[in-house]
């Protein structure tokens, strides 16, 4: 009996030892304190344009970690991909604020030791421990980049230039409008209504009670006959603008940059109502198979040069303001264009994506949750 028990203890101890992250000696709180030798592979779930050879090739050369990236079309897809195959298929994800909390509460991601990321100290204060990736002082990832969702239009076909989001809800460009195929688009309608129907009392476009939610969905229902296509992939929207199927729509700056590079006459702007936006975090899967390469990636992606390269390629704002002078060196004027090192006031003016939950934060639990957003969106599209 005793022998068997001992064997059990031994087995349990062995199992416990195997469970310690391979990334070095475990500290008191279970976080690694050093980065060990790379595993040679790194599997990422990322937004289109986040893993360009420009900065991935030098990373692989420096660390020996071969990067395999899977592009996701939406935050929801990212959450699903991170859960696929028991959660160990991918090491990291570039989650936006509307996915990060779901991943944390779903126990799909693990805390990281930000002290292993030297550049983290240089980040703008608002992105060091933002509520979308830091819970009770535990960091579930490292902030990456942020930016607004903008209004894109064809400068030769849309005159005068639009100044309000009203342009995508008006019949003037009927059949030439495109918006993302994404339930979070309801927040864009709510943002518009918060300025144009103040009686609804919308304060936060992600915290909507039934009445406010219905008003936003109704606005989108009225928009429905004006839509050419709900775009699912960034490349879909690029095609629509290239081929003359759409002349105005909601976009990310990435599509604008790609279209301008292809000499399509387009421009984008943040309309008078303000904009929704994203703040992305590289998060580490709870069952990551390549934790050392993951930490190396976190270090690499936070350095000023890589931050600047990605910011210019995608058209977004780096979390590390040390990247600003490098941005200007790579493309003069780009730091100001993307509000690099922006003031806290500008940062606050953008309504960053977050997961809609029933608990509105006002003590009441009468807000519409994300499942309701998703079902409303599917039914709206028809």
């Amino acid at each position: 009996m005793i022998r068997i028990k001992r064997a059990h203890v031994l087995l349990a101890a062995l199992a416990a030892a195997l469970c310690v992250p391979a990334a070095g000696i475990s500290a008191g709180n279970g976080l690694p304190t050093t980065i060990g030798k790379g595993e040679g592979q790194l599997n990422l779930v990322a937004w289109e344009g986040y893993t360009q050879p420009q900065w991935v090739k030098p990373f692989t050369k420096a660390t020996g970690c071969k990067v395999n990236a899977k592009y996701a079309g939406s935050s929801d897809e990212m959450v699903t991909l991170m859960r696929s195959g028991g959660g160990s298929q991918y090491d990291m994800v570039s989650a936006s604020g509307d996915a990060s909390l779901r991943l944390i509460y779903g126990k799909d991601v693990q805390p990281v030791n930000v002290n292993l990321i030297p550049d983290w100290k240089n980040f703008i204060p608002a992105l060091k421990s933002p509520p979308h990736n830091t819970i009770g002082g535990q960091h579930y990832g490292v902030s990456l980049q942020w930016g607004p969702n903008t209004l894109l239009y064809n400068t030769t076909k849309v005159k005068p230039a639009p100044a309000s989001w009203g342009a995508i809800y008006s019949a003037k460009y009927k059949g030439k409008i495109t918006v993302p195929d994404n339930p979070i688009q309801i927040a864009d309608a709510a943002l518009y209504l918060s300025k144009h129907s103040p009686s609804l009392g919308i304060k936060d476009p992600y915290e909507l009670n039934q009445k406010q939610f219905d008003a936003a969905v109704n606005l989108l229902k009225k928009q429905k006959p004006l839509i050419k296509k709900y775009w699912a992939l960034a490349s879909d929207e690029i095609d629509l603008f290239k081929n003359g199927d759409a002349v105005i729509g909601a976009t990310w700056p990435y599509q604008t940059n790609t279209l301008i590079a292809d000499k399509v006459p387009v421009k984008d702007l943040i309309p008078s109502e303000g904009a929704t936006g994203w703040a992305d975090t590289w998060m580490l899967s709870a069952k990551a198979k390549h934790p050392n390469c993951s930490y190396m990636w976190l270090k690499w992606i936070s350095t000023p040069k890589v931050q600047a390269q990605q910011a210019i390629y995608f058209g977004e704002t780096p979390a590390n303001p040390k990247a600003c002078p490098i941005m200007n060196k790579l493309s003069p004027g780009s730091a100001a264009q993307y509000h690099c090192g922006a003031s806290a006031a500008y940062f606050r003016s953008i309504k960053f994506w977050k997961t809609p939950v029933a608990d509105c934060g006002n003590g009441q639990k009468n807000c519409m949750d994300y499942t309701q957003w998703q079902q409303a969106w599917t039914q709206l599209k028809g």
Partner: protein
Amino acid sequence: MLLLAPPLLAFGFVYLASLVALFISSFWTVNPFTTEIERIWNIDNYRTIWESGAYRSIALRTIGIAAAVTLTDAVLAFPLGYFMARIASGRSRTFLFVAVLLPLWSSYLIRVYIWRLILNEDGVLNWTLGKVGLPHIHIAYTNWAVWIVFSYVWLPFMILPVFGALERVPHSLIEASRDLGAGGFQTFRRVVLPLALPGVIAGSIFTFSLTLGDYVTPLLAGGHPGTQFIGNVVYSSVGISNNVPFAAAFASIPLVVMAVYLLIARRLGAFEAM
């Protein structure tokens, strides 16, 4: 018997077992915040599908377009199949065979994207219409586009069984019909068509089921409001909101439709023609 065991086991465990798992999970639900599956028995998913006009019309649209594609392909395939089986000589028959099968050698996605280039606003179709002085048409990304693309990509799957059925019509029967005084049209209607019908039904099983289960073409060639298929709702329920139970419930619809369709097809003798 020994050779038959592996495919039978695969069929039993992989296919039938997963169908059972699909059916069971359609009675579960998901946690709205973490979107984790919770194993609580309920019929809410089916109730949502039944009560929501949007899901009903998505299901009806899917079945309707699948039927329209099948009809279109049957109408296009019959004359071609007839020509290949009964009129064409050896050489031109080979040529037609290659022509029918050649598109299958290229990726399905490439063919869908090519149709996007043809149908879009500044595409080949509108360019041609403009050249001959006709007004532009705006069917890109609509259900019309979805119907055209489906009819194109599944056409070979209709032509081949129709050709097979027509080739098997014995020449002696046609001669007998003529000897008994039937004209060309009457022979076609009363001898050739009934004998070839199982081939058409066999082909329709392919075109109908392939359209019914597809979601890529509606996603790429569609996208206009009101172009979702059952497959798209299943895809977004699984791939986007991780609502596997709801997806399973919605996926039961094409399953039931196909079961009914196959029963009818069997009665019409399609399985002998395959």
